[in-house]
């Protein structure tokens, strides 16, 4: 029962944190473009406003699917983000392992995809096919690199892997070449997971008018956006705690069970997110779907396979 309570606490926490992180992301993005940018709490305003808007369900849409899908997407993403956060707070494994987290995070793009195509808008259909392609492109390397981690540490439990870093007193990504490759593959998959430039072709505004989101408005759009920022946060957090768990480095001075560890982890997540999501989104152009696909099968996939091979060799 304890785990349920912790999850209940982390749920709103994750909700707030992911919106806050999105605000910071937008601010930094604007500053890199020489602009002032929106206030950091802008995502909260957006969310509240969207919830107070009219609910429109297009006539062409199948309304039941159209309306339930955003709720599932948001819930799954937040839950996916809550599990690692809750595990760190509780200091034990809360609800399952890495595969479950990844599975939860994959639900949200699939749901949005279904919702978009149920809207009956042709742009939604194009968005569907693009998202499908991308899903295949990044899901495979992502899973393989998780596999590589599990081969190495013979565990898929999230908290065990985090603790390993404390035990060896080093960051996982630096511990072995196999893990470095896994970390690189994971990081490269992140922008595609959350559909940010240069891999946002499934929601490209100038090409297919936000793709799957084209018919969504009001609260539904708010939920979809929330799902997106939650998985954004979840992935950064996951990447940081799995591969770059900074408290491990300070373990000598600092007990990792402290709330301080959590804070440290969040700060690293923030910096990490800025460098892996915000900066690429600022300095790259959007790729075409074919180019992105090729990229994913060429670089992250190779990296993840190398990583598995190395971990089997024990490197």
């Amino acid at each position, binding site marked *: 029962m304890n785990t349920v309570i912790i999850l209940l606490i982390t749920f709103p926490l994750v909700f707030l944190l992911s919106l806050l992180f999105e605000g910071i992301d937008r601010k930094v993005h604007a500053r*890199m473009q*020489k602009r002032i940018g929106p206030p950091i709490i802008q995502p909260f305003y957006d969310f509240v406003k969207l919830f107070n808007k009219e609910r429109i*369900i*297009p006539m062409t849409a199948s309304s039941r699917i159209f309306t339930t899908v955003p709720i599932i997407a948001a819930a799954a993403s937040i839950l996916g983000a809550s599990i690692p956060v809750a595990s760190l707070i509780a200091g034990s494994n809360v609800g399952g392992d890495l595969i479950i987290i990844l599975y939860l995070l994959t639900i949200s793009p699939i749901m949005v995809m279904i919702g978009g195509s149920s809207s009956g808008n042709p742009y939604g259909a194009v968005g569907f096919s693009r998202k499908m392609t991308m899903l295949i492109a990044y899901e495979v390397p992502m899973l393989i690199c998780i596999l590589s981690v599990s081969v190495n540490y013979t565990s898929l439990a999230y908290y065990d892997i985090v603790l390993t870093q404390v035990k060896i007193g080093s960051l996982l990504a630096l511990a072995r070449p196999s893990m470095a490759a896994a970390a690189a593959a994971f990081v490269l998959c992140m922008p595609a997971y959350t559909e940010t430039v240069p891999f946002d072709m499934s929601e*490209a505004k*100038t*090409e297919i008018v936000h793709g799957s989101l084209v018919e969504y408005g009001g609260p539904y759009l708010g939920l979809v956006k929330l799902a997106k920022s939650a998985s954004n946060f979840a992935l950064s957090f996951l990447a940081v705690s799995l591969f770059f768990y900074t408290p491990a480095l300070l373990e000598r001075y600092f007990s990792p069970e402290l709330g301080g560890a959590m804070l440290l982890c969040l700060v690293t997540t923030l910096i990490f997110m800025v460098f892996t999501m915000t900066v690429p989104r600022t300095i790259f*152009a959007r790729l075409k779907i074919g180019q992105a696909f090729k990229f994913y099968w060429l670089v992250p996939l190779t990296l993840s396979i190398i990583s598995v091979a190395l971990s089997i060799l024990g490197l």
Partner: protein
Amino acid sequence: MTEKFDEVKEVKVDYTRLRVPLGPVHPALKEPISLTVTVRREEILDVVIRLGHVHRGIEALAETRNLIQTLYLVERICGICSHSHTTGFVQALEEIGEIELSDRSLHLRSLIFELERMQSHLFLIGIMAYEIGFDTLFMFTWYEREKILDLFEEITGNRIHHSMNTLGGVRWDLSPSFVEKVNCSLNKIEKSAKYIQEVFQDKTVEKRLCGVGVLDYDEARELCVVGPTARGSGVKVDIRKAYPYAAYSELKDDFSVVLRNTADAQARTQVRILELFESINLIRAILEKLPDGPIYKESVIKLMKKIPEGEATSLVEAPRGELLYFVRTNGKEGLWRLNVRTPTIPNVLGLKPMLIGSEIADIPVTVASIDPCMACANRITVVDQDKRETIVTDLKNLRNRGKKQ
């Protein structure tokens, strides 16, 4: 709760062959144009282009106004090359009325012309960046563009509609302190133009532009495309060289025609970027040579009275290519007929061969690369379309409307 959605309903959602209506309201197209694109997955099978959403009946309106009113009306054919339109128009009038212009006013006309060309090219380069999802570059180029708009605002008093031309000259003079300012801004703009040129050679940018929207030399010749679109396909057309107007006959050694042979979106963008440098050179030359003298003749009312019945055509090289004005005056301060052939019309024709066979992701880039600003193109194309419509449907309605106004 429910919603009218008549047009999309008729689209059959079918995953192998899908008709995607693009526009008239579409975020990639700042102005209305309607492309109905038939696609199979991502590949484009067919394109139907439909224009006319911005048809405002300017040519007919011009026939009801006097010459000086028409001057400001043609300026509002379009906001991006307003100076080209007024130049085309007053040149035709000046030919009919045999009005001689002072050298200074001709030079000032060319000066604004080149500033406008730079403004327009920077505008398009920014839009290209925006289409490929490169927001930062869009922000940077448009920030540079503000510098030119500031110059416009200081010299003429408005950022977009400069109203620089008037019958028999120009309206605002350039004091030495302005010359200084223009020079100063030019240096800054040159620096950033170099920077933009570098960024456009970047790998991710090139990936999106190279080989996209190819219009080869023969097709370009056949479709009579003009301006940077033609020059990107290696066709050497430039009215400034071929039929010099304003001060260009004196400046013809100060610039060269930029040509590219790859004929894709990247070539067209390159042409525009390089033309920025040509324009900078031209402006420097103009400022150096700027002769003294008056900037306009006499009151426009007097001049307007002097213009006899007659007709003339004039050609100018607008930022997007050849712009033709045909003017027939009625000798009573008004017009019998005004006809404009704008660069976007021939260029839009080039879209179809460019688009067929490419991907959905390429549509915005290709469309943007010919720089279609529909404001002017819409007037002419709709003529026939409109006649068809009116004859079939509501001629009576049209007449009634005419009476009402």
